[in-house]
């Protein structure tokens, strides 16, 4: 299984993104980390190019609804809607449902335990669509 952890937008806080990346890697998942300040278009391109199962967006600026929508639209436009998108960061509880309505598979607001996050990524693995199996 292969995932992309990405920081869209302008927010420079990457502690959460890096901690999640470490935890996924320790769980045997292949992790690509985008680095800071990626545009939604860049994230979509990298996700498609690297053929990942899941894109994890980490957003602490409050702009999560807009940025998640841009990434989901971008994946759809590339015919890559089978790549799941999950979102973590400072997401107020009231925004969890709206994010899911946009098509976000799972949302990890502040305080979500790491094992739950790892499990959610596992659940989002695509079934039998790629060669090579576990990465």
């Amino acid at each position, binding site marked *: 299984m292969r995932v992309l952890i990405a920081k869209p*937008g*302008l*927010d*420079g*806080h*990457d*502690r959460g993104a*890096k*901690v999640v*990346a*470490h*935890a996924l*890697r320790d769980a045997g998942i292949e*992790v690509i*980390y*985008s*680095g*800071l*300040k990626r*545009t939604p278009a860049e994230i979509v391109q990298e996700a498609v190019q690297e053929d990942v199962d899941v894109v994890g967006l980490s957003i602490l*600026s*409050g*702009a999560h609804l*807009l*940025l998640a929508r841009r990434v989901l639209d971008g994946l759809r436009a590339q015919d890559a809607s089978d790549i799941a998108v999950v979102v973590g960061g*400072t997401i*107020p*509880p*009231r925004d*969890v449902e709206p994010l899911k309505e946009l098509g976000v598979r799972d949302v990890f*607001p*502040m*305080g979500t*335990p*790491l*094992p739950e996050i790892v499990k959610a990524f596992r659940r989002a693995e695509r079934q039998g669509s790629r060669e090579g199996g576990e990465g």
Partner: protein
Amino acid sequence: MKELKTHAGFPIAPAYGPEDLAGVDFERDIGRPGEYPFTRGIHKHMYRERLWTMRQYIGFGTPEETNERFKYLMAHGQDALNVAFDLPTQLGLDSDDPKAEGEVGRVGMAVDTLADMEAAFAGIPLDRVSVSLTINGMAAPITAMYYAVAEKQGAAPERVVTTPQNDILKEFIARGTWIYPVDPSLRLVADLIEFSARRYPRSNPVSVCGYHIREAGCTTAQEMAYGLAIAAAYVELMLTRGMAVDDFAPRISFNFTAWGKIFEEVAKFRAGRRLYARMLRERFGASNPRSWMFRSLIGGGGSAFAVQEPENNIVRGAYIALAGALAGAQTMALPTYDEAYTIPSPKAQLIALRTMQICAEESGAADTADPLAGSYYVEALTTAMEKQIVDELGRVERMGGIVEAVKSGAIQAEVARQAYLYEQRMATGEVPKVAVNCHVGDQPVEADRDVELYSFDPRTTEAQLAKLARIRAQRDNGVVNATLDRLTDEARGRQNLLEPIMEAVKAYATLGEMAQAMRRVFGEHQEAVKL
């Protein structure tokens, strides 16, 4: 008996006694408050003569909205300001830049031109109020705007007290608002320090921040070690420009955190002051005692707080204030209890301010200088912390020094590693957090909705965009372009860029235009992504 460790990683004994002070020389290592090496604080009488400054971090929406909140806090006894800027401003993007979409006025106030800084400080006399500007990559243009507003208000330069953060190295390590590559970024830091030292003698043109690095996950000892290493890098930078150390060192200030174990935090600051004083005096040859003083804002970080049962954060804030007072803070700022949910509400801000005031006026923590001095525990911790900080400084040296370690990404990787280790210690319960991993309540997090959520108003963006369009239409674009061309030209050379920046600011050039004028020469930083 359960083994306990400090955040720095060394063991804590169940009791301490005189035998733990072996090797400590009172006169040499501890001394008296206000005397070298300032272990016990930088002033002789500490808070009996002057209480710490209370400076909550605030800024959101338009400059006009932020101006109202400034006045609200000042009406309740806050004596200084600490301005938060939105991300486009911090990154040198105008509000109408496509990359700014959705982020205008979101995590701080939006600034496009001098007109915005004029609005933010309307009715606030800049020759009497001291203002911190939490700005780094764009510190030079934003501080130039601030100086221009002060000038328009008629404030004498020698009465202007401002502290632009201007600490770009920690942005590369932790906070991420870098723009240009490391070397030109350092040049801008030095340009602002030099310009301010010459023209605005009471400004503090750099605030070296361990705070954000700790928030990103490093240990207490690393927070102090990295801060000291960064300060040393800036001192060296100014010396290579031919400035004498005593011409700028007295105005270097610091910004550190004090959440966690109270006694360890106090020891961290006592050890840090001692190390800084020795470094400035012995290594850099400073002879003005003010150059030896580690003057610090001490605050808390959001990472001290929890999203579960948010009211508990008010109690955590009180302990942070106590630690800051016992540690000898010059300035204090506390996170607000609702910080994990939202931009702070006025009520949450007022509670944070009241927490500091109660600590100052009622608790007795401010009654005498360094009240923990002589405690077997605190003195032993101070010695142990000093040793650990020195060890960490040695590790930075082995990475090639702080600037090289930042360029290679080695220091960022170490901070991320520590963040993950900390997360694991939380998961096992080794680091206890009430209502998070011990004494957990039966209410799910979603139930904790007793927090007034800030509603981001899309009209904020519209108002900001309309104002920017108006300024672009009203100003003399020929003059603006000439000032921007000059800025690009001088960026190619080695002159101090504050002069051309000031000229562009006064012509109402936008922040994005000034950033771009320099980007043409400097290029953009490429992050060394390491996990």
